[in-house]
């Protein structure tokens, strides 16, 4: 009996490949190490307050990164998410403050504002999809169009003014805390669950991965490659629209210059660190969430321990490089 156990152990040892193990679980291990480090060295880390701060900060990144994961799963990329956030964040206050469309009932006008903002964001995503799928423009160029123009549109919408407001009905999505949990965290969790389920269990999820994994083969197998691309960019726009609303709700103000600035890079980083292949064909929502949390926690750890912001950015970059390199190594064998 003991004999069999030892041979089994030997076998496992021989087949254990440290690099591959790191490639698969590296990000999760890093997250664990960060937690342990903080528990020991960062003051007041193990408090609900800290958890809430981190979760609320990471929320919008995760929400945008969910859409980005799907886009990258098809082998594309969406640079326009930050600008779409700005448009959504500019449009909603314009409506519920009555600037463009006076509605007397505040509840109704907030509802209209939210729906309209997210709908417009989704349409902008569809525009990206049209450029990529129908016009066959490379995704990085196609989405660069709105990356550049989108923020301009947001500024034109608001005449470049800062919109300040105090509308609790709207700001509930950024500041509300049913059962002590921030509303945006609930929104994030719901979206994570839905997206993970879609990728794993649905025909659409399968189509995303097939399109990204081998577009020619997918097309020959009868998969509507064009429609899949339309859909993922629309979803990415939808996610960005929601994230835009949350950001302005938290800030009680909408500044077209700042909402979602640099978000595309944070989202792409989260997706990459999470283990989704940037060339497409393999995508994991859970990975993306872990990736976003890791990046967030690195930033938090450094700032909480007095490392200046500029240095924190460098460390963040180093972690992204390390994560992507490890995944490459894992794939080589």
């Amino acid at each position, binding site marked *: 009996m003991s004999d069999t156990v030892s041979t089994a152990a030997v076998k496992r040892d021989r087949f254990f490949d440290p690099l591959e193990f790191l490639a698969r679980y590296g990000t999760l291990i890093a997250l664990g190490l960060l937690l342990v480090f903080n528990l020991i060295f960062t003051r007041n880390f193990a408090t609900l307050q800290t958890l809430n701060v981190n979760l609320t900060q990471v929320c919008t990144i995760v929400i945008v990164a969910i859409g980005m994961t799907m886009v990258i799963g098809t082998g594309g990329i969406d640079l326009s998410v930050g600008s779409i956030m700005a448009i959504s964040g500019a449009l909603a206050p314009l409506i519920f403050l009555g600037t463009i469309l006076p509605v007397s009932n505040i509840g109704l006008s907030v509802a209209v504002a939210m729906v309209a903002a997210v709908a417009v964001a989704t349409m902008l995503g569809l525009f990206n999809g049209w450029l990529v799928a129908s016009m066959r423009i490379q995704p990085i160029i196609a989405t660069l169009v709105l990356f550049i123009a989108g923020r301009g549109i947001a500024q034109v919408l608001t005449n470049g003014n800062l919109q300040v407001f105090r509308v609790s009905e709207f700001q509930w999505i950024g500041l509300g805390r049913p059962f002590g949990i921030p509303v945006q965290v609930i929104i994030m969790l719901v979206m994570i669950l839905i997206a993970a389920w879609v990728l794993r269990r649905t025909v659409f999820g399968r189509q995303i991965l*097939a399109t990204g994994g*081998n577009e020619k083969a997918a097309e020959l197998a009868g998969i509507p490659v064009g429609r899949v691309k339309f859909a993922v960019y629309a979803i990415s726009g939808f996610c960005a629209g929601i994230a835009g609303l949350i950001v302005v709700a938290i800030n009680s103000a909408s500044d077209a210059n700042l909402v979602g600035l640099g978000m595309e890079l944070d989202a792409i980083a989260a997706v990459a660190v999470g283990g989704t292949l940037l060339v497409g*064909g393999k995508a994991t929502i859970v990975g993306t969430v872990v990736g976003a949390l890791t990046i967030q926690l690195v930033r938090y750890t450094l700032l909480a321990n007095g490392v200046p912001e500029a240095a924190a950015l460098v460390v963040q970059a180093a972690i992204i490089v390390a994560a992507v390199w490890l995944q490459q190594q894992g794939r080589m064998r």
Partner: protein
Amino acid sequence: MAQTPLLSMTGIEKRFAGIPALSGASLEILPGEVHALIGQNGAGKSTMIKVLTGYHRRDAGTVSFAGQPFEVGSPHEAQSSGISTIYQEINLVPLRSVTENICLGREQRRFGLLDWGAMHAEAERLLATFGIGIDVRRPLMDFNTATQQMVAIARAIGFSARLVIMDEPTSSLDEGEVAVLFKVIRQLKADGVSVIFVSHKLDELYEVCDRVTIMRDGKTVRVAEMDKIAKLELVSAMLGRDVSRADGHATAFDDAQRPKGETVLRARNLKAGHAVRDVSFQVARGEIVGFAGLLGAGRTETARLVFGVDRTTGGSMELNGRPYDPQRPKDAILAGLGFVTEDRKLEGIVPELSVAENMTLSLLPQISRNGVVSEGRQRELVEGFIEQLGIKCSGPNQKIRELSGGNQQKVLLARWLATNPRLLILDEPTRGIDVGAKGEIQRLVRKLADEGLAVLMISSELEEVVEGADRVFVLREGRTVAELEGEAISEDRVLDAMAHGLSTRTEQAS
């Protein structure tokens, strides 16, 4: 041989990851001759050329050029030593002027500045030797493919090339353009420049080449004077078939005669681009129809038309007696067609997905409800096929890229069988597959046909077509040139049609 050769390569060996690509290959080019280099896919032509131009380092063998041992490390070095290559895809700079393209890398200077006047004159002079007078100041992309090719040749000559390698130069040219190219080749020859001409179009070889080297499986199998070798001999040497040899069974197919069912697909005078000019054929229930032909005969291109991947520009198709005109693969799939493509990696598998996911890719609508994949139905189906086809994998969830070629091919077959097709198109179904799996796949195809499936099989392996097919259509340069059925299918008849086309017997008699 009276002349000392310009180039002599002997005993060339080259392995990739232990697998020999060239073993004892040789090539000899005389000064001022046009030499054809031919062979099937994977025969080693391109490897041989890449060894010569320094793109690959040879493992063994000697190369001498102009009487000197020849050792280069890159195509660039080869070019400065007098060997220029003109590739299928012209590698010039389309946005720059003709002059710049011709003189790139050897610009003439005066007082430290570029001497444009001298360079324009030089470009014009070089092109004039081919009888081409164009405005050399205009960007290259303003001109047609043939002219661009002339510019590429002029560039090669400008580097005072003594040997020009042309890799399938005529594949994108129309007849008039080919004539111009041949004029240039004859001009080169008159100037004492040697040409290596790689092509699959037999008529062209006879028109312009002096000698031919035939390669097969990494070896040089035959060197001959062009006017002393008949087309049939050429094709048999290329395919490794002895025309007179009575052959035993080389495949898992048998020759039993079978009753024919009703016609499933009928195609009349299909046309599309340069590759498909006039192809007609029909496939019936329970029948394996073989497409035979040399590389570039238009077999795969025809299959792509039938499956709606590319559009036809002429001709018509009928499926079960009704007009059939697929606009995209989805239409073909809905009409009951399946297509196992030639290139598994490029057009078949989705490497990061599992065996199960790959297998059900065309079947997603049927195994899902409201857009949700039914795991139960998927497992049932996939496990059924894994067992039925004997697919060796650790389970339905193993990634397909970890499987061997033969097992990947079985998964792809299962992908289409699962859709219950009426007509299955197989493009090189056993290429790159080990012998055991090959036999299994051949037996399976036969069994499926016996059960009523119509099969259209493209294969470059002659015995697979001859022994496997109930009816064979021979394609040659985009046209159906022969239809053979039952007893009439034999290797020499197929070879004959591949070599000569329609006007067969007369030419052979002469």
